């Protein structure tokens, strides 16, 4: 479903945060990627989600090589991946109600006729009630907003879901609830999952297999983590 081949990426070409990393996720498989704070795993997740152009290496999505990132990515590739980030406040447009937020990918791909049914269905799955759906992000808690962000990521029925620290800011019960929403969707759709995080206990319980960042990137020590601890 996803192949990352020798990907190098970052924010400064002279000092990339991801160096020569390869990782594959088979169709229907769930892979947990474990790494310490700031090691670059989120950057890799953004490359896989077609949100960040790598400096080198290649990405293959559902058998087709990726040629463009962000707005340059063709629609069918962009919509094949659903992404949930750690900080819903940074990824949710503050002007939209939760209902509009969930519906947005449908509208921007010309499928507005599906909005009513699909939003109602997803809201029930993630546990958002009507009253909450009418509120805007500033008037809901982070956990409620994250439920909406997960619904948005599922709204186009992606074949690959990328969860970057999706539950890092959530309580134990909401974490278990969102993980079970993801797993119910995967069981029904056969979608693959790349879950990125640093909670070993959680990812080992959740995913088919886990890989550690250091195994992917044996060539060096993660500079930031070293700096942070030094």
């Amino acid at each position, binding site marked *: 479903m996803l192949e990352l081949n020798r990907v190098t990426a970052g924010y400064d070409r002279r000092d990339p945060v991801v160096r020569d990393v390869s990782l594959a996720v088979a169709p229907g498989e769930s892979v947990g990627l474990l790494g*310490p704070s700031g090691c670059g795993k989120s950057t890799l997740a953004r490359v896989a989600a077609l949100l960040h152009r790598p400096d080198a290496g290649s990405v293959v999505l559902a058998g087709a090589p990726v040629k463009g990132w962000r707005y340059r990515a063709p629609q069918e590739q962009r919509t094949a991946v659903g992404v949930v980030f750690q900080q819903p406040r940074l990824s949710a447009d503050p002007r939209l109600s939760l209902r509009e937020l969930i519906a947005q990918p449908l509208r921007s791909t010309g499928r507005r006729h599906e909005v009513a049914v699909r939003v109602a269905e997803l809201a029930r799955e993630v546990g958002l009630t009507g009253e909450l759906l009418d509120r805007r992000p500033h008037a809901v808690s982070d956990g409620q907003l994250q439920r909406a962000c997960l619904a948005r990521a599922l709204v186009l029925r992606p074949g690959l879901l990328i969860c970057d620290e999706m539950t*890092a800011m959530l309580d134990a019960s909401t974490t278990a609830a969102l993980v079970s929403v993801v797993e119910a969707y995967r069981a029904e759709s056969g979608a693959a999952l790349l879950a990125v995080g640093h909670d070993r206990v959680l990812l080992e319980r*959740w995913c088919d297999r886990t890989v550690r960042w250091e195994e992917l990137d044996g060539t060096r020590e993660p500079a930031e983590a070293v700096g942070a601890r030094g």
Partner: protein
Amino acid sequence: MKKTSPARPVLSVAGLSVRFRMRGGRHVAAVTDATFDLAAGECLALVGESGCGKSVLASALLGLLPANAETSGAAVLDGDTDLVTAGERVLARTVRGRRIGLVPQSPAAHLTPVRTVRAQLEETLRELTGVRGPAVGPAARAAAGRAAFPADHLDRYPHELSGGLAQRAATALALIGDAPLLLADEPTTGLDRELVERTVDELRRHTDRGRALLLITHDLAAAGRIADRVAVMYAGRIVELADAERFFGRPGPRHPYARGLLEALPEREFAPIPGMPPELADLPAGCAFAARCPRADERCGLQPSFENGVACHHLTGVEIHRAEEPADA
């Protein structure tokens, strides 16, 4: 130990409630009747499901609620300032940052986007401490170090930081004022286990220097590591207030909700508490947990009163067992 401490509370919260006025005359009861004391040198962990009102409680203490909020009750700081009635002028000039420090939830959204971390640390140092001139630079590096923020990232802008780094930057800023009361709202979000421990240990050291800490966290392991007491919140109410050792160890939580929360951990059952918390705009008349509670019966149609640290009509088996066998000690 803390219970016998004669220290006057740094913060004394009594009957604190927050309601949000919504369109159509509806109300969201975000916090109801919160009552607790917090002494110097003590850490109280406030835990509970997402949306239960923890952050609203913290915002109420800082006067940072939006205009549609109505606050009642009292929250007295150091015996002399009621945070509920103090005006914005007092709060802005003498309370926020000086008498109460805040580590905000969603730090990336709170950092000033157009200024580097170094610039923000230096500005806060100048504003809240006497540090001036050439001493500012080293002081900023030291402040960053206390929160394990790496020195070689000081010249970055907030959008260039990972979630965990933004978190550490916000913690560094909050510790600068050395306020007698620190509110830390999810201060370890996005940190790996090693950094979680490092951060909460720093907060504990801060507390041990005679500061009071209200630690709002979903990370039960972090709470267990440094808290003296635990307050469990559900649907806007504190439903259990317990000694941390007894809560995380034996005999464990007494309230059925608190029990469910601990059991949801991936190292335990990893099962969510069935259902969702009720709408705070539409709370049931009785116990708000009744719809999800395995022990609910008709008595639960009445709001349980908060007695001996717990608000429940039917305490868990352990508790009943203990109560029946006092000879056990």
